[in-house]
């Protein structure tokens, strides 16, 4: 178990290095100096308290999205619907924020619960279709992403419309925002918010559920071998629905931390990229909550530093997304590296 653990992280590290090399090549192609580029990229994410705060804030939805993908993946399910679940969770939380007036201490928990349940229900649709009708969850979640996209597209102008703009919701009141004053002051006016505290708590809970409870054991058993799990008396269908439901709920929290933490309202016509970045986070974090946390911080750094890099060097900010996409590609193909390491280990053992 220990060896496997280390090798997963080694593979992730190789994927990151290859991704950074690919980014460097791209910088050279467009006549830029990659050392300068990376220098400004990392400084842009870390050079003062405000930027560190922004890096953490940017990483927050990625932690939730990564946990969501990881949770489903432990049950052998592929949740590529985190984007849609984020939208639905965010939409319902925003609806609460704009229509319910309560003191902050009551309103925030209510929004958290609503975002979790809304995202969870959206996710469990895919789980239900998988369990009852054997509809592949990848296809179902893709369709649900676009249903969510168009739902937000039409619902926001209809019910939550801003005063002047048709394309976004009203701003949520400060009682409904995850941002709080002392945290902002501590990080010199950064948009860091309570989302990160929630993310850490949730990551610990997820790790606990997966590793220390019967539910986690059953979920993983279904993921390893569905037939064997069924034979052992585990209700496979129930676990599939539950897994997608919880994964959806986690993505709903990602939506909350995006729309009520980083942003102050919802824009229509945007499928949040964090849902897809969550897949990268999960792969890079070797599907463990701790790994997810560090991977999300790393991607948060890339995203929050890219603006500074662009301002200083003129390298387009999309370099960050390119690096992330490349990392996913290398993580997908890491089987080869894995096999190479395995062969070398075997050869050494036979010597």
């Amino acid at each position: 178990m220990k060896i496997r653990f280390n090798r997963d992280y080694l593979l992730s590290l190789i994927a990151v290095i290859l991704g950074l090399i690919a980014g460097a090549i791209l910088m050279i192609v467009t006549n830029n100096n990659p050392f300068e580029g990376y220098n400004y990229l990392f400084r842009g994410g870390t050079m003062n308290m405000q930027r560190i705060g922004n890096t953490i804030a940017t990483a927050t939805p990625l932690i939730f999205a990564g946990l969501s993908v990881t949770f489903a993946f432990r049950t052998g399910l592929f949740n590529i619907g985190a984007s849609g679940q984020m939208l639905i969770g965010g939409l319902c939380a925003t609806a609460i924020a704009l229509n319910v007036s309560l003191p902050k201490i009551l309103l925030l928990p209510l929004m958290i619960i609503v975002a979790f349940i809304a995202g969870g229900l959206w996710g469990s649709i895919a789980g239900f279709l998988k369990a009852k009708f054997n509809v592949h969850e990848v296809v179902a979640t893709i369709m649900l992403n676009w249903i969510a996209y168009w739902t937000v597209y039409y619902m926001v102008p209809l019910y939550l419309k801003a005063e002047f703009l048709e394309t976004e919701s009203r701003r949520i009141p400060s009682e409904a925002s995850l941002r709080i004053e002392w945290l902002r002051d501590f990080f010199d006016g950064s948009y860091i918010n309570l989302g990160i505290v929630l993310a850490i708590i949730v990551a610990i809970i997820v790790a606990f559920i997966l590793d220390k409870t019967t539910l986690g054991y059953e979920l993983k058993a279904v993921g390893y071998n569905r037939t064997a799990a069924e034979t052992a008396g585990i209700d496979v269908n129930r676990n599939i629905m539950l897994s997608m439901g919880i994964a959806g709920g986690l993505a709903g929290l990602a939506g909350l931390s995006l729309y009520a933490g980083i942003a102050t309202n919802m824009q229509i016509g945007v499928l949040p990229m964090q849902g897809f970045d969550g897949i990268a986070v999960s792969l890079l974090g070797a599907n463990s909550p701790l790994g997810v946390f560090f991977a999300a911080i790393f991607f948060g750094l890339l995203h929050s530093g890219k603006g500074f890099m662009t301002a200083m060097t003129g390298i387009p900010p999309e370099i960050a997304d390119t690096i992330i996409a490349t990392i996913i590609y290398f993580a997908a193909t890491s089987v080869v590296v894995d096999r190479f390491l395995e062969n070398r280990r075997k050869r050494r053992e036979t010597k």
Partner: protein
Amino acid sequence: MLELLIQIFPYAIAFTIPLLITSLGGLFSERSGVINIGLEGLMLVGLFAAALTISQLERTMPGQAIWWGLLAAALAGALLALLHAFACVTLHANQIISGIAINMTSAALTVYLARAMTGSGNIQIMIGLSRRNIPFLSEIPIIGKMLFSGTYLTTWIVLFILLASWFLLYRMVFGLRLRACGEHPHAADAAGINVYLVRYIAVIISGACAGLGGGIILVTYSGEFNGTVAGLGFLALASLIFGQWRPLGILLATFFFGFASTIANVSQVIPELANIPGIILKTFPYVFTLIALVFSAKSSQAPKAIGEPYDKGKR
């Protein structure tokens, strides 16, 4: 109402054609056993390549620029698809993760390059394909107006490709081999078929088709590259599933979805349609696909070996 239908029809067809060719591309890939959820990214890279080529050539050779652009679109799609094929076929990677990587790479890389070149990230072209009436056929009452008036040449090219693909897949040896690789690769291998090669070819064809689809969006109705194809690649994927992985099926499915999307797009300016909620028109392709999947799950026509990397050593 008929008058309205006649008015909408040419737009619906223009919207359907890129979907159709992309979905057809997906058909090649998935029939050979490789899932391709990278269609969205492949379309986008085609759109980008076409915009880049045409914007460079339109001053010097305005007559040919569009066709070079479409060629570039197909080539760019094929090239990116090669990356997907390499991961899925040679490296036995997870086909879904690779497809996601293709989508994300395409979305990031095209905008990165566009920004590095133009500064704004948008590439506009000044010329577009002109609409033409087909002689004689467009004179036929009603049908002439609906199908043969104001058509783009690309529409007929795509329909020809569809017909040729049907012939290739169902009437020629290569098509039989391709489908065999998607149903039972081990048997295909035992029969002397090079499964790896067939899958490579199929995935590259799918990239070329999807790239062409992106290029057609540019030269017919969009006129600019702005970093997204707004989910059309996923709509093409839905059409592929809804059409049950058959050429005629995807023709009907893409037209059905294309027509619905067109109605949704124009419903605000046409009073007769204003009372159909846009949300229903826009979401129903996806809802229908889910429902179709529920009903077809037991007798699914999906290729049997879809998604499984083929490993010669495993029997």
